């Protein structure tokens, strides 16, 4: 089956159809009776959606690329190491063997590991339908808990991550009680010589971002981290609570992990000469 056939199948009954990628969230939800789609269209045969390709300025990652491949891909390790790091912490071996980038994004979990990373490095997603294709910025993809800006007939085709244009430090962290569980918060930071951008997922329905720009992040020192922490804390005002943690707790953890990744990203920029 190719992508065109999938788009055609989905367009016939967009509201009753659920796309199946790796199935690591959808199949358990169907087994529990929480999801009862009329029709399931599987993407597992659409080999054109499995790739990691680089151009001069970007890296394109096909939506059906598994977490396992993203965790170990040489291009990604070089150009966006924190995406590989995020992939290494998802679920467990079996989940990473099967689960995919596009599936994770389209599922719309606000604490999904990839989302803050993609937002921090200003990635975008190509989505397609029989009506054509369009690009959605990573920070506009998940609009609330389990809700995305995808139209019902749209399929995630690829994610495009910009290559780092200058000296960059980055860091990713996930806060979780038991390894492999859904994260309580996830955080990613990208630091350059004149800006630091932090994105925190999991505290609120949609990832929150805060960026500080200045002439020289090194000269600004600890002040940059304080400013980022205050910005993220303010942005996390509508944090949600669930069994894993109350809204206040999530908001507090957003602040803690913002601080942690910002410091790490700056440290890697200034002490180690930068990372992907």
């Amino acid at each position, binding site marked *: 089956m190719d992508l065109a056939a999938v788009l055609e199948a989905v367009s016939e009954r967009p509201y009753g159809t659920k796309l199946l990628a790796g199935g690591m969230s959808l199949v358990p939800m169907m*087994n529990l009776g929480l999801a009862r789609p009329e029709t399931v269209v599987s993407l597992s045969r659409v080999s054109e959606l499995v790739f990691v390709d680089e151009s001069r300025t970007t890296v394109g990652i096909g939506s059906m690329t598994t977490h396992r491949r993203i965790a170990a891909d040489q291009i990604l390790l070089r150009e966006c190491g924190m995406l590989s790091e995020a992939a290494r912490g998802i679920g467990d071996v079996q989940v990473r063997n099967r689960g995919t980038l596009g599936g994770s994004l389209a599922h719309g979990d606000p604490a999904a590991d990839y989302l803050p990373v993609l937002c921090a490095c200003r990635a975008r997603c190509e989505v397609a339908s029989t009506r054509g294709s369009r690009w959605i910025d990573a920070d506009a993809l998940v609009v609330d808990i389990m809700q995305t800006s995808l139209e019902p007939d749209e399929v995630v085709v690829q994610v495009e991550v910009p290559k780092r244009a200058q000296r960059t430090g980055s860091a990713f962290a996930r806060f979780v009680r038991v390894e492999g569980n859904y994260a309580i918060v996830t955080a990613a930071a990208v630091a350059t010589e004149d800006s630091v951008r932090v994105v925190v997922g999991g505290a609120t329905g949609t990832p929150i971002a805060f960026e500080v720009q200045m002439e020289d992040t090194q000269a600004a020192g600890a002040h940059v981290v304080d400013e980022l922490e205050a910005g993220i804390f303010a942005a996390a005002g509508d944090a949600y609570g669930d069994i894993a943690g109350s809204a206040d707790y999530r908001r507090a953890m957003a602040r803690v992990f913002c601080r942690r990744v910002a410091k790490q990203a700056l440290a890697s920029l200034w002490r180690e000469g930068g990372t992907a």
Partner: protein
Amino acid sequence: MRGTVSINVNARSYTVDVDTRATLVDLLREQLGLTGTHLGCGTGNCGACTVLLNGDTVKACCVLAAEVDGRDITTIEALSTSAENLHPIQRAFVKHQGLQCGFCTPGMVLSAVQLLRENPEPTDDEIRHGIAGNLCRCTGYQFIVDAIRAAAEELRRG
């Protein structure tokens, strides 16, 4: 709705009529009678249904039977032909008491197969990460880690 899938399970070919709602673990247990693959949670947490799909471990409760058409599956039944002829990993589980009730064991062993194939000399930490997708409620894991470490040594000796 029903459909036909042709699969290769433990090097044997099958063509099976399946309910399109059925999962791979249903297919293996109910239709092929391969009950060594256990069904625990049905939600991708416990790993008791772990099998190899084209050589890599997956949780068979989270894969639809209709998706495995044309694929190769390896279940625990492929590892040994009799109790006297166990796979080195299975022997190590017996020797080090890496099991008590045995429910998680098929999945644990197959996760160990994938781990040791990719990393023949794992540290204890790497062993723990390798079996992170398999829950055991009896052993406290230490004896399983001991068993996998011992199996790795034996497999390296050849």
